[in-house]
């Protein structure tokens, strides 16, 4: 059974199923890891143990079928060990859980290597793991009722008889019952008896029973068994003989290659003549109606099992294409609405009604299409129990991880991109935020630190928080570090502004650079990643109480709620999330700072003013501030007032890529197609705000 060897596989190319196997094996591993991390070694739930066993067993089955010997070998060891555990023949220990976690990691690497063609795990490493797992089997005592696979077994035949008044056939039952301690006992019925239905009929008919024959499969030797029986029965009435000696089971072949003869791969409990294949008039009881009943989807926790009858796998490009087409539909519908708006609504009432319905239908379709790509946050959160466990152990800290709102949904593309920033933030909390157990106790805190991951919806966005109850951010430390680096800071800066400093590249107040974090290359990348996703980051912190970092993201990458504004003949779209308000300034509110530019006073705050016409290099219609509109923008760089000619309206727009045929343009985050078919640019607010604030550094 070699991979891709079509002749041996009956003309079927098995490699077409490999991808599905890799996917489901990785899912099994994910589920297994989640279960292992949740296991309480003292009081483990038997259903959880069974699930872990099944995961290993399932992967082994697939690996063996598709010819992945290394994976089969390792999963076989895991399966053997865990079979013992689930049958209560072996105690669960932290060491065992760790060994399994390590094996799971190795399997992930092996599967990934097979799937992507990279370097797989070395044979030595795999062997070392197998040895480590096998070590748990060592203290295994002799046989018990459950069949432990890799143990030597003998097949012995026992003949009881002859029977007479002093030794009845029935009394043998009692003896056989005791023998069950040694292994599996089966009676051999005489060949003449025709088995109707099931075999094993022990009821004697008119004929007196001469002898009773039994077969026992046991780890005990022939002599030991004989000794045992002499206690139970008259040795003259029992004959013990060896039928099959134990095969050395050291290489209990995990991936058996059955040699010649189909009998090794297949066997029947019934006569071959009774098989439908051999019956000319095979009467299959046909059931007229072939309705398939839909199963209700079973409740699943974070670690999903591979099979779910009520879902299908769809490739991501297909989903993306569907969403693109729906986006096109939204644009077309908008264009229709625009065209129709020029007509008389009374005269064309039916048309307008139809268009209104079309708009509703399109919005619904859009939501439904978007929701296909939505996945629960658990996909992002699921790896953290492991990360926290490993890193905390490495750092000698004791940490509890809480997750809230795992079911909160987010677009698949964003989930994938949020994982790295989240990981960095969690590591930071573990490394710098949380104190050591001793330090915590000295401060009067609980010994175990807590990290909380929380996700929830807020308006049209999703908020993801990483918080800890550690030492919090140190204002003084950050300020002095900033001054050290020559950054323009002042003691009068607000807490928020000081916390934002840690996002600057190369900034780290870590005293010691650990290999977990501290090199200062992280936070700026985190913020940039989040901004590129159209989101923003906020920090709250109190000394010795803790820190909370909030990430706010749009629900989806493709659609934007925006405000359209006009400068000259051009329309620009500003993402609504960044707009805090818009106003028409009074003359008294505007003033100029020599050499820097204009500012506007809004409720006591002075905000820098920038003209959109200047940014994009075109002529605006309105020169006088009081006749135009100031749109107040807010991003984590601060607040800025953007001067435009006019506000046009609020729209939901489909984001189109500028870069697929052109390139990235500074100040523009994308483009969209308006109702009249024309292209409008979407403003990159973070960039605009950044521009003005570099003009107005924070020095007092």
């Amino acid at each position, binding site marked *: 059974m070699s991979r891709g060897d079509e002749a041996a596989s009956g003309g079927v190319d098995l490699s077409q199923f490999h991808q599905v196997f890799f996917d489901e094996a990785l899912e099994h591993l994910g589920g297994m890891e989640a279960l292992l991390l949740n296991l309480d070694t003292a009081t483990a739930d038997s259903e959880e143990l069974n699930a872990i066993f099944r995961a290993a067993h399932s992967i082994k089955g697939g690996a063996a079928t598709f010819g992945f010997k290394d994976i089969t070998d390792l999963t076989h060891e895991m399966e053997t060990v865990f079979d013992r555990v689930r049958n209560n023949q072996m105690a669960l220990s932290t060491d065992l859980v760790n060994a399994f976690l390590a094996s799971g990691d190795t399997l992930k690497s092996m599967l990934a290597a097979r799937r992507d063609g990279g370097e797989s795990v070395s044979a030595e490493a795999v062997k070392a793991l197998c040895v480590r797992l096998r070590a748990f089997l060592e203290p295994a005592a002799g046989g018990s009722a459950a069949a432990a696979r890799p143990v030597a077994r003998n097949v012995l035949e026992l003949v009881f008889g002859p029977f007479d008044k002093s030794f009845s056939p029935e009394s043998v039952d009692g003896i056989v019952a005791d023998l069950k301690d040694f292994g599996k006992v089966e009676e051999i019925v005489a060949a003449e008896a025709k088995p109707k239905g099931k075999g094993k009929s022990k009821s004697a008919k008119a004929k007196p029973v001469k002898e009773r024959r039994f077969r026992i499969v046991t780890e005990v030797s022939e002599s030991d068994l004989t000794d045992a029986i002499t206690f139970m029965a008259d040795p003259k009435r029992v004959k013990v003989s060896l039928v099959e000696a134990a095969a050395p089971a050291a290489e209990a072949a995990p991936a058996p290659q059955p040699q010649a003869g189909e009998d090794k791969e297949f066997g029947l409990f019934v006569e071959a003549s009774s098989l439908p294949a051999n019956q000319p008039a095979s009467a299959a009881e046909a059931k007229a109606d072939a309705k398939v009943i839909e199963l209700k989807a079973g409740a699943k926790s974070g670690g999903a099992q591979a099979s779910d009858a009520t879902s299908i796998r769809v490739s991501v490009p297909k989903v993306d294409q569907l969403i693109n087409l729906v986006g*096109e539909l939204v*644009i077309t519908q908008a264009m229709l609405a625009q065209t129709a708006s020029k007509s008389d609504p009374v005269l064309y009432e039916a048309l307008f009604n139809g268009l209104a319905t079309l708009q509703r239908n399109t919005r619904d379709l859009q939501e439904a299409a978007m929701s296909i790509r939505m996945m629960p946050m658990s996909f992002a959160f699921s790896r953290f129990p492991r990360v926290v466990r490993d890193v905390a152990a490495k750092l000698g800290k004791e940490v509890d991880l809480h997750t809230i709102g795992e079911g909160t949904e987010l677009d698949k593309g964003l989930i994938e991109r949020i994982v790295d920033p989240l990981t960095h933030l969690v590591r930071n909390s573990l490394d710098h935020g949380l104190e050591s157990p001793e330090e915590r106790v000295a401060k009067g805190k609980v010994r175990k630190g807590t990290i909380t991951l929380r996700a929830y919806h807020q308006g049209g966005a999703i908020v993801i928080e990483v918080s800890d109850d550690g030492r919090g951010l140190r204002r003084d430390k950050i300020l002095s570090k900033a001054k050290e680096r020559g950054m323009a800071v002042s003691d009068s800066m607000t807490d928020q502004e000081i916390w934002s400093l840690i996002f600057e590249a190369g900034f780290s107040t870590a005293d010691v650079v650990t290999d977990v974090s501290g090199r200062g290359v992280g936070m700026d990348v985190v913020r940039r990643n989040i901004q590129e996703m159209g989101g923003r980051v906020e920090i709250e912190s109190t000394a010795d109480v803790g820190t909370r970092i909030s990430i706010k993201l749009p629900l989806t990458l493709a659609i934007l709620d925006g405000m359209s504004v006009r400068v000259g003949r*051009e329309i620009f779209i500003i993402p609504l999330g960044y707009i805090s308000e818009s106003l028409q300034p009074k003359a008294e509110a505007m003033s100029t700072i020599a050499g820097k530019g204009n500012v506007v006073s809004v409720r006591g705050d002075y905000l820098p003013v920038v003209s959109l016409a200047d*940014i*994009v*290099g*075109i002529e605006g219609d309105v020169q006088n501030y009081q006749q135009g509109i100031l749109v107040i923008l807010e991003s984590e760089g601060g607040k800025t007032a953007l001067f435009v000619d006019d506000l046009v309206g609020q729209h939901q727009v489909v984001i*189109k*890529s*500028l*870069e*697929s*045929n*052109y*390139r*990235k*343009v*500074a*100040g*523009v985050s994308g*483009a969209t*197609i308006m109702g009249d*078919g*024309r*292209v*409008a*640019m979407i403003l990159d607010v973070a960039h605009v705000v950044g521009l003005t604030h570099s003009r107005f550094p924070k020095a007092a």
Partner: protein
Amino acid sequence: MMLQQNEAKAAAPAGVAAGQANEFLTFRLGTEEYGIEILKVQEIRSYETPTTIANSPSFIKGVVNLRGTIVPIVDMRIKFNVGSAEYNAFTVVIILNVAGRVVGMVVDSVSDVITLAGEQIRPSPDFSASFDTQYITGLGTVEQRMLILIDIEKLMMSADMALVDGAVH
């Protein structure tokens, strides 16, 4: 409004196979006539005012919506300083498909589609025409006309045109 592409009038002598690789779309820029491989041409449209792109070079007019795709429009007359860049009912935009990107270029007018046989194409002498000779693949002669044959893909993707990231301008 879209102009129809003219069918090729085989100017070559009989017996020469008209493979598409030898088919050229010819167009005018100023006083000169140019030819580009027909395979790179997606369609021909009339000019519509593009949406300007902030702080872009003057020869990049902006972007337009081509059935849902955002396509940049380059005015070759401005870029190579030929003729006068007028925009009227006859102004034509050739939509190109080069290196996986869709790009439009404004020209004065489109002439026709021509098949050139091997012997009708001569290497170009080293005079400096409107633009760098590295983009000129040869000179074609058809009856009295001289066509300057251009590698349009190479030209569009060059740093010079500032259409591609990493471009320096």
